[in-house]
């Protein structure tokens, strides 16, 4: 069994061709631009050889002379006050160079400015089993480990909180002394149009509860960092991080050093998936240990520690009330999410908004209300995992749509297609949608899977299910407030014809280094192998915010086009002068700059650089990118906007064993609206990787804790945290829909996260088709399926899922009129709110194109 691919590249209805006007940010040709020689072609990744041959240096492969090894002592209590820490015995051990406790680094940090709630080492309180309490630098790992065991910590145990329900019922003791109140970290109450009214006037209203269990990234590479302190007062940190810029800021803050003396180098990650996007204790600790000992210090976490770093999928309990008309068109939706955040803030405030923000970008929701609460619990902190906060509500939404279709006797495909958001439109919560290729995606997988000869027609035990999804191509706002570019690219041309490209982006395996080389090569008409990529180094590269929110191809790509165009200009000028050919006739291609009308007349690329350098001096250029301003002006409008949204649809075919409830996914057909592929092979790799990760979430992955055993992680190991092996991986048929987006480089949109989203609900819907029971939970494990099958056989409800939500005192929502109800993007309680008179008061629900805003 393996992964088979269908049509490698399939143009959608609005397929991009040479005859159409280029859409998206295309490089402006100096004259008649030749066809893309690199973009859209399956070039090999720039780092593939070193990865395949095992010569790629990951962070743990780095060594420096006189290097020490660090280990962290982690809490064995879920929630406790630190009464005392005695490091005497540890310090006395031979080979131990330094022992640190929290007192040495009293300044807090956190990835979000609103959640600066972490200490490099716990100061007076531990908040989960695994919270770092002390650190040792020693001559080797064994000695460091022995020293950690020789540190005596006295704890005074506090009530440990293991769930949202307990958190809401237990305001004291508070896990943190900030947040909304008690153990509520964040609450959101937003309403876009009167939803109660919409539901009251609906033909049919469905209310459903869903639960999505937490799960973790499980990158193969364990986090590792190496720090060096320079005698001139500077520190360098090499780390497996997705966000060197944010680590840079936090290091400077906690170490109390000017940022100019801190250098963070992101080492290629052996898998990230969002799990290396925070600032981690060990990164700050090794830097501090290097400062204290004057020696390089390295740490590589154990697999168990990676589970404790976590920052993965939040467990979310959900309640959706959705009202539709006779044809299944959505008139109103009220979604409530109850989020288990774990012990720290992390990206949690953003995650909270994300459990509601993207519910409106696939299907038109006329009026939308969203309530959410995120609680602190004494578990490793949750954060951003592939899809960040959106797979949970997407699961609920896609399952609920199937249920609505079944209630009304409608075709679930048709219900979805009727509800599709229009391209270049606005949503009720003020997100501006650009290109929108979900319709062609649905058509493609329906056709490819032979849906209509299978759905409700396969024998008992076999079934098909369809679901859709959408994701951001980069967050519209940075993590800390500023008006500077989100991505910068610098280019240096040298006389040899070599081109060095500098960017702060980090390659986490997704291929961003390659995308950067491909785009620059395409614009300059040279071969990608002639490009040297320097990435993710805060000393050498301009800032890119990081490899998160699927932002890199779009933002770095646009910055790269700008930089490359600017680098090309002086070359064109010099060649034009030298050969007496008007600039408008020059073409950059095939490592040459030549006359479009007489292709033999031209110079090599290296000669072009030499002419330009002779004429104006050293050649370099910069480019940068900042997303367009989002139209929403309400509190919370910062989460959800993106320059472009990708779309995906998937059909899963499953085989359910009715005697055991075990589910096997046989095959998945998936179509992804990529806008345009910069490299179709890399795009398909991301699609297939998303399917694989989605299968794990759908069927088995779960971060489970034993609430009755001190909230200990049930089994932090790769053997017992169940994630699919190659034996569980299904066949995948991938279709790429190319409908270029005006904001994307060459029209490209994201692919790193979106294709994950439809997998879990597609499997759930297929299980229902196979055995007629609903598992309204993820993972869809055998126990749950069998329980529902047995319940159904006894004449009870053939459903497994949550039955109630805990009591929350919701606040009065901020009311923001949708664009078609006279809104101006602000909440009506905002003093600046100015209702906009409606041009067409009848406000036909499918005509609200606000893209000219």
């Amino acid at each position, binding site marked *: 069994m393996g992964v088979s691919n269908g049509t490698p590249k399939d143009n959608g209805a609005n397929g991009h061709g040479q005859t159409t006007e280029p859409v998206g940010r295309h490089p402006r040709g100096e004259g008649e631009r030749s066809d893309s020689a690199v973009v859209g072609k399956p070039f090999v990744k720039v780092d593939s050889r070193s990865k395949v041959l095992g010569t790629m240096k990951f962070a743990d492969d780095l060594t420096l002379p006189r290097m020490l090894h660090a280990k962290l002592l982690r809490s064995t209590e879920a929630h406790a006050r630190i009464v005392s820490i005695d490091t005497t015995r540890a310090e006395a051990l031979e080979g131990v160079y330094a022992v640190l406790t929290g007192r040495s680094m009293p300044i807090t940090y956190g990835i979000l400015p609103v959640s600066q709630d972490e200490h490099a080492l716990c100061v007076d309180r531990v908040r989960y089993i695994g919270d770092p309490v002390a650190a040792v630098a020693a001559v080797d790992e064994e000695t460091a480990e022995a020293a950690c065991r020789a540190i005596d910590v006295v704890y005074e145990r506090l009530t440990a909180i293991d769930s949202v329900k307990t958190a809401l019922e237990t305001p004291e003791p508070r896990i943190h002394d900030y947040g909304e109140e008690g153990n509520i970290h964040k609450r959101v109450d937003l309403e876009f149009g009167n939803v109660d009214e919409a539901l009251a006037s609906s033909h049919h209203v469905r209310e459903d509860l869903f639960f999505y269990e937490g799960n973790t990234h499980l990158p193969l590479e364990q986090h590792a960092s190496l720090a060096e302190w320079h005698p001139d007062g500077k520190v360098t940190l090499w780390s497996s991080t997705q966000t060197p810029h944010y680590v840079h800021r936090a290091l400077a803050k906690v170490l109390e050093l000017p940022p100019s003396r801190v250098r963070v180098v992101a080492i290629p990650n052996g898998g990230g998936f969002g799990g290396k996007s925070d600032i981690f204790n060990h990164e700050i600790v090794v830097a501090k240990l290097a400062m204290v000992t004057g020696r390089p210090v390295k740490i590589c976490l*154990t697999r168990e520690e990676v589970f404790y770093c976590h920052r993965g999928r939040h467990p979310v309990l959900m309640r959706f009330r959705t009202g539709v008309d006779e044809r299944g068109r959505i008139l109103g939706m009220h979604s409530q999410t109850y989020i288990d955040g774990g012990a720290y803030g992390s990206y949690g405030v953003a995650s909270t908004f994300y459990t509601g923000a993207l519910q409106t970008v696939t299907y038109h929701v006329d009026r939308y209300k969203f309530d959410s609460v995120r609680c602190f619990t004494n578990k490793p902190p949750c954060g951003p995992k592939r899809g960040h906060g959106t797979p949970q509500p997407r699961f609920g939404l896609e399952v609920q749509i199937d249920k609505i279709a079944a209630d009304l006797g409608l075709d679930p495909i048709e219900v979805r297609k009727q509800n599709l958001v229009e391209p270049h439109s606005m949503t009720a919560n003020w997100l501006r949608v650009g290109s929108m290729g979900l319709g062609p995606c649905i058509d493609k997988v329906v056709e490819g899977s032979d849906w209509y000869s299978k759905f409700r027609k396969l024998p008992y035990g076999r079934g098909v299910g369809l679901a859709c999804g959408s994701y951001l191509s980069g967050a519209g706002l940075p993590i800390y407030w500023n008006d500077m570019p989100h991505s910068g690219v610098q280019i240096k041309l040298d006389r040899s014809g070599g081109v060095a490209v500098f960017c702060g982006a980090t390659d986490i395996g997704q291929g961003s280094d390659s995308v950067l080389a491909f785009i620059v090569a395409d614009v300059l008409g040279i071969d990608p192998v002639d490009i040297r990529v320097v990435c993710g180094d805060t000393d050498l590269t301009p800032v890119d915010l990081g490899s998160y929110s699927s932002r890199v191809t779009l933002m770095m790509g646009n910055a790269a086009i700008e930089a490359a165009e600017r680098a090309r200009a002086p070359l064109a000028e010099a060649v034009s002068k030298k050969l007496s050919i008007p600039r408008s006739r020059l073409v950059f291609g095939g490592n040459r700059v030549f006359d479009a009308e007489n292709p033999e007349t031209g110079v090599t690329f290296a000669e072009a650089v030499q002419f330009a350098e002779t004429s104006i001096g050293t050649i370099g250029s910069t480019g940068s990118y900042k997303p367009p301003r989002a139209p929403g002006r309400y509190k919370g409008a910062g989460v959800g906007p993106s320059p472009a949204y990708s779309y995906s649809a998937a059909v899963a075919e499953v085989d359910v064993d009715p005697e055991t409830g075990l589910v096997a996914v046989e095959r998945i057909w998936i179509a992804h609206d990529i806008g345009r592929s910069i490299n179709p092979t890399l795009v398909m790799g991301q699609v297939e990787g998303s399917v694989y990760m989605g299968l794990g979430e759908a069927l088995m992955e779960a971060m489970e804790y034993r609430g009755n055993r001190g909230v200990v992680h049930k089994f932090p190991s790769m053997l017992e945290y169940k994630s699919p*092996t190659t034996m569980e991986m299904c066949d995948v048929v991938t279709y790429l829909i190319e409908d270029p987006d005006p904001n994307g480089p060459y029209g490209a949109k994201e692919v790193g996260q979106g294709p994950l989203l439809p997998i879990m609900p597609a499997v759930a819907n297929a299980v229902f088709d196979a055995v007629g029971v609903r598992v309204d939970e993820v993972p869809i494990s055998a*126990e749950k399926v069998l329980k529902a099958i047995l319940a159904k056989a006894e004449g009870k409800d053939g459903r497994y899922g949550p039955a109630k939500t805990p009591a929350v005192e919701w606040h009065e929502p901020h009311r923001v009129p949708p664009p078609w109800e006279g809104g101006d993007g602000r909440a009506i309680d905002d003093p600046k709110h100015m209702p906009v008179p409606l041009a067409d008061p009848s406000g036909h629900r499918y005509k609200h194109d606000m893209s000219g805003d």
Partner: protein
Amino acid sequence: MLRLPDFDYYAPSTAEEAVRVAADHGPDAAYVAGGTDLYPNMKRRQQTPAVVVGLSRISALREITGEASSGLRIGAGVTLTRLAEDERVRAAYPSVAYAASTISTPLLRNMGTIGGNLLLDTRCNYYDQTYEWRKSIDFCMKRDGEICWVAPSSPKCWAVNSSDEAPLMVALDAKLRFVSPEGEREIPARELYGADGINYLTKRPDELLLDVCLPPANGWRAAYVKLRRRASFDFPVLGVAARVKTAADGTVEEATVVLGAVHPSPRIIEEAGAVLVGRKLTDEAIREAGEIAQHLARPLDNTDFLPHWRKQVVATHVGRALAGLR
């Protein structure tokens, strides 16, 4: 990474020498063959032998001798890969080869041995954890602590026998040959396994397993069915080994049903075998045997999956094992 504790390593080239080294160090010594179980346990400080006696240089342990008609003798050091691929084993004892092929992953089967699998330390979700993890629950009675977290009121340890070959060897009535300074002795597989997770073997620590003698392959057939979440890597959460001997017309003359991975030892379900004798393997007979086994199975919360579900599916898996022998 997790680091091994310090230990002295010996690499004897004969069984006699291995036994002598082990005897010299008494309870501080442990034998190691493939190391796929012992070394991870040592990294987690579940076992901390000061002396490790490596068996990989003892070529005599790697032999497969004899004939199927009189019984095959499999050296304790035969790797699981070889056991799964050996033509003689596959022809005469296909269930033994199959069970070996299901153990862990291809890489670990290249190292792991039949001896190691049969003498596998019992497993438990509260025990197969690092020292720090176990410290956070104040340890358990199998190592460093007082209580059995799986059954806190229990005076005994409920760690599970998770070997795939053990239930088969019990079903087949295989004999195991051990050597110690006191000489050789044979222990039937049916008498090898103890009743609790700590005293899970009746052999003494200094006794070295030399080989396993499979009974003559004449007139009986056996099957093994393994339940686990993933088709690779995972230990069983339920193993069913079944052996039947039938008359020419298909009437069952002897039947043994053994459950693995639900108790501290492989368990013969006598009543399930008895209900089949004198009958053909009809759906009805198979169903009855399965229900008896399900009734007697006592899975606890110490492996993957919920124990309630593991019990619920016993009859189905016993049925699948027996149906394969029709």
